[in-house]
Structure formats: C-alpha cells, structure tokens
C-alpha cells in the first residue's frame, strides 16, 4: 500500500439543484492520487451527478471542485467540459458506454490523443504537407495505443469497428480510451455494470494496475460490491444526495447509516402500527432474506 498522498481532488460543499430537485446536497470529500476512491449509494443517490459536476458536464449550483494537478490547481467548476479533460487531465467513462461505434478500435484510441496529435500536425497544416515530425508523433501515438490495447487484451481486434465488439470488450476499450488521454484522474462510471464474474475480476486487475503502475487517482461509481470492497482504498457513500458515510471499505460496510440506506429503516419505526401488524407474518422472513446477501458482500 503506497503512503498516503496529498489529495488529488477536493470536492467542497458541492450542491446541484435541478429546478426544485436537489440532486446533490452539500457533499464534500477528497480523492487521493494513487488511490482508488469509490462512490457508492442506492439508485438515485446522486453519484452520477457528482461525476458530471467533476467532469464539467454540469456546472454545480454551489461548491468548489479543485484538482491538484502536476501543473497547478484547477478549479473544475469554472472550466468548460472539454478543457477539464484537456488541461486538468480528468478522463472519464460513461455508465452507458459511449464509444465511436463506426470507427475502429485503434481510431478510438487515437481520437483520445487528439490534442497532442493536433499540436504535432501543426493544426493540420504540417500534417497535410506530410511533415516528418507529424509522422513520428503519429507513430508514438499508435505505440501508446498499442500499449493499452495489450493491457486490455484488445490488440487482436484493433482494426475492427468498435461498435461490433462484445459488451465486455467495449467496457475495456472505453477505459483504454480514457487512459490514452494520459489522465491525472480517471473517473469510471459503473465500469463493472453488465460484466460477468471473470470479466469483473479482470477489471479489478486492470484498475489495480492503473493505480499502482501509472500512479494516478481513480474515482469510481460502482454497484458491484465485490469490486468496491475488493479494490477501493476509500469509499464515499451517498444517499438522497447527501454524504452519509466515508472511510475504508471495512468501516463503511459496518456503518449503521449505510446499512439503513441500503436496506431501509428498521421495521416499526416508520410504518404505522396496523401495517406493521399486517407484515408481521412474512415480514420478518422477508427482512432476513434481504439482509442475507448484504452481509455476505
């Protein structure tokens, strides 16, 4: 376990309102470099909203989001979405995969290196003239892409359209594409969704590799508890847009607030007595059944 780093990302008092709906309310947390920070919570807890605020797809109603990068601090809440990726080097993936389906796998990875290649091609002018400098830069870009293709076991399919890949491969490609931008912080929105057991184990390997070898911070939203508990160093739990717990996976797992958020209130506290009485028969069995899997997680 690497020594604790200074925070890479600081989120302070983040609030996001959509009209009257408060999707995220006063959430603060930090994510360290070389650490995997997981944001978990029930459906509708505001996880993806937090992500969209960090990556510039929403501008938060209130709050400050600072990325402490190698080249100084960036106030993400004030930056345009594409600049967050370009200057602050925050890369992300999407809950519903967003590849460029009718472009080849390799092209997907080259588009991710657009800004570096654009400079090398002299804003296209040198590239049109076929300058040697650009050809060299392009070869380097292909080598970089090749590196991530090997890491994600996609090198064999590099020349076919990304849209024709199987689901698990598309997920891996999206991570490879995000990594090709050479990010300081990698944000993954439910990377294990829809993966089978073996694929999800490979994903754990990949994420650990990214954390340990590339020394970048990873922020992930995840429902799959096996992924969260196994690989994350730090867990932030959201419920109804509020942060209800934060800490190591072990601490979070035993936090009563978290258990309540995932399993609901204890019976009898919130329900009127007659309903409780009706439920008494199979209600106890149901609750025990529900709690079973949660405890094994």
């Amino acid at each position: 376990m690497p020594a604790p780093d200074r925070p890479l990302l600081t989120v302070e008092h983040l609030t996001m309102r959509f009209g009257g709906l408060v999707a995220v309310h006063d959430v603060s947390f930090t994510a360290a470099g070389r650490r995997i920070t997981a944001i978990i919570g029930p459906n509708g807890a505001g996880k993806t909203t937090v992500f969209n605020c960090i990556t510039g797809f929403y501008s938060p109603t209130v709050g400050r989001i600072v990325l402490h990068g190698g080249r100084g601090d960036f106030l993400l809440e004030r930056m345009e979405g594409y600049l967050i990726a370009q200057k602050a080097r925050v890369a992300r993936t999407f809950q519903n995969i967003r590849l460029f389906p009718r472009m080849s796998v390799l092209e997907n990875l080259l588009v991710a290196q657009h800004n570096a290649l654009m400079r090398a091609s002299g804003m296209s002018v040198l590239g049109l003239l076929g300058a040697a400098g650009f050809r060299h830069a392009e070869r380097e870009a292909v080598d970089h892409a090749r590196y991530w293709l090997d890491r994600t076991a996609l090198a064999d399919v590099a020349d076919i359209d990304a849209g024709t890949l199987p689901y698990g491969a598309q997920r891996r490609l999206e991570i490879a594409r995000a990594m090709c931008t050479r990010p300081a912080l990698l944000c993954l929105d439910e990377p294990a969704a829809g993966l089978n057991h073996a694929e999800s184990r490979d994903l754990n390997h990949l994420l650990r590799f990214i954390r340990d070898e590339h020394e970048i911070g990873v922020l992930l939203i995840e429902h799959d508890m096996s992924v969260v508990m196994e690989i994350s160093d730090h867990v932030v739990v959201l419920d109804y847009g509020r942060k209800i717990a934060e800490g190591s996976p072990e601490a979070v797992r035993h936090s009563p607030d978290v258990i309540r958020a995932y399993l609901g209130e204890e019976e009898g506290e919130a329900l009127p007595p007659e309903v409780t009485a009706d439920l008494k028969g199979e209600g106890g069995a149901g609750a025990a059944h529900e709690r079973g899997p949660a405890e094994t997680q």
Partner: protein
Amino acid sequence: MAAETADTPQHPPQDGIAAILKDAGIAALISLALALPLFGFRIVGFGSGRGLALEERWDWVVTAVLAVFAGRIALNLWLRRFRAVLAIGGRVGDGVGDKIGQAVAAAPRLGRILQAAKPAFRIAVAGALLAVALAWPAFPFVDRYLLDLGVIVLTYVMLGWGLNIVVGLAGLLDLGYVAFYAVGAYSYALLALHFDLGFWECLPLAGAFAAFFGIVLGFPVLRLRGDYLAIVTLGFGEIIRIILINWYPVTNGPNGISGIPRPSFFGLPFAADPPEGTVAFHQFFGLEYASTQRIAFLYYVILALALVTNLFTLRIRRLPVGRAWEALREDEIACRSLGINPRNTKLTAFAIGAMFAGFGGSFFATRQGFISPESFSFIESAIILAIVVLGGMGSQLGVVLAAVLLIGVTEFFRELEQFRMLAFGAGMVAIMVWRPRGLLAHRDPTIRLHARGEKA
C-alpha cells in the same frame, strides 16, 4: 424467398387473381383521387377581360385510372414472374421478362459487390473512373453536349465531395450548402468586374470569402444538432438568396450579373478574334479555332478542382482533425470527455466545406458568364445533399457514382421534358430501396495496427 416476402408483405408471391384485382382496384382508387384535381379540371382563359372558365376533362381521368388499373395488374403479374426467376436462382431464361428480371436483380447486387469487394477492387474502379474522366474530351463520340454534361457532373461531384466533409465526416446536416456556392460565384463575379482580377487570383479569394461566411454562420448555430441545425442552415441558404435578390446596387438583384470574364489559358484567351495585341489559344498552338477548346479547358479546370477536393479530403481524414470530425459525428459527448473542443472542430469542418463550395461557385460563374439568384435555390442544396446521402455518407467513390447516376443519367431523359424529374425521383427511390445506407456505405479505418489480411 422468405426475405423477399418480408420486404414486400403487400404482395405475397402466391397471390391469387382476386388479390391482384383487389390491389389494382385500390391503386385505381388512389389514382382517381389524384387524377380528379390534376387532370380533371383545367382553367381556360377567354382572353383579356373576359374572365376564366373551367374545362372538364373526364376522358383524361378515365384514361389515367384505367392505365393505373391495367399497369398495376401487369406489375403484379410481372413481379410474380420476377420472383420466380429469383427463386430459381438466376437460371438463364429465354423470355424477355426473365432477362429484365435478372437485370433488375443484378442492380442491387452491383452495389453489394462493390461494398464487399477488396479495397484493391475499389481502387481499380476509382482508377478506371479517373481514366475515363481524364480522357473524356478525347473520346470521338463526345460532342459539345456531352462535354458540357461532363462539366456539370464534375461540378456536382466536387460540390458533393465538399459537402461530404460537412455531412459525411462531421455529421452536420447542412441544407444551405448552396449559399456558400453563391458566395463563391458572386465573389468571383464582383471581384472580376470591379477589380479586374483574373479567375486564378479570384479562386482563393472566393474560397476564403465562402469559408468566412461558413464561420460567420457556424458560430451561432453549431451548438444545435440534427434537425435544428438543418432548419437553421436551410434558413441561411434562403437569407443569402434573398439578399442577392434585394441588394440591388451590388448584386443587380434578380437581373443577375452578366459579362463575367471567361478564364484564359495562362493569359491566352479563347476567342475566334482576340482583341488587338493578344494572341488567342488556338493561334498560339497553331490550331483551328473551335468553341469546344474552351469547354474542354473548363472541363479540365473543374476536374482538377474536384480532384484537389478529393485528395484534400482523403488526406485530412487521416489527420487528427479528420478523425475528430468523425468522432464528433459518432458521439459529441464522448469527444468532450476526451478534451476535444467541439465548437472549433465543427467550425473547421464547416469552413472547409464552405471553402470548396466557394471554389465551385467561382468556377460556375466563369463557366456561365452570367449568374443570378435563380441558380442558387434550395433545390440545388437538396440535390447536392441527395448525392452525398445516396452515395453513402462519407464515401468518396459513392459521391461520384451518385452524381453520375442522378445528374448524368437523368440528363439522358431530357427528351421527356417535364417528366425528366420523374426519372430523377425514380433513381432516388431505387437507391433507397436497394441500398438504404447509400451506394457505398463501407468505411475503411484511416489507420491500421495490423496490415490487412495479417492475422494478429
């Protein structure tokens, strides 16, 4: 067979006579509804001041309905026969119907063959087309009419290639492309007339003006997508046309601009009697004067312009900016998450597409010698867009095939006069039925990790 039936469920091949009659009856009813207002009544004038009268033409209506009824029956019978031919698997029949059936069956196959063919084959097709294009004025059967037709087709090919950058690569649906064509044409006409500049000096200026207009339009509207962008560009096309009509002092309004200088061959004019002190093209080369010399020269100018457009597009597709255009077409949100500036990237596509329209426009002005706002109506934009879409979005070869098919072949139906557009429409419908994603929808990656055919 099952697929055939699925394609046209309204005519199952096992139709009995009753079903055919019913189908023909419905068609006849529809044609009655159409023929009554179209053929049935005609307004006749009695000369000045004596008003109008309505003439009824029931015989026309009856003829039309009967023709549709009989035609529909014949079509259904023929379709059954045609399907039978297909089912046998293209066995050579001796009936005329069978031959037609096979020919029709082969047409969609052609596209599929081109599609599935190895790139070597597609390069061969492109090379053959290029050779034909280069040698076109030298063919003995090519008279002035065919040469002119070649110029027109090539103009549309060039415009198609230019619009392909915007629509095919960047995925921005532009219904006002002809506005940039107009900007190029008027730029050349006005610069040549007022500042005495030659065609070759005006060409880059016209391109620059058109690109400038592309950026001016692009800035406010490129945040729009899809249908909304299409509507705004459509409006922009109309704005330009209406300005051209109404800005009388500059554009001479609907009367247009005439006397636009013709291009010269590196300073040698094409004229039977050149002005004092100059040597004409035919005198310099010791040839007989022929009006086709100028047309042939224009033909090669537009061929060169079109090829420049094509080479530029082929090359820029392989550059980061070209890939970013295609990525934007595929998913703009993903592009933003990768640090690509969507606005600038779209603007470059818009400006470069407009620039080629500007080149095309100034060629159009010098070829015609006369331009007026009538030449830049919406239908031109629609035709260019149709060429791009029917050719297969993003496919360079597809644009050529679609332009030859829609412009060149339709031209041979000119003797049908006002029904010529029917042939145009029929061509479009045929392509959409057989090749719904365009003639050539195939796309090759712009860069490969493994050489083609090599097993990884």
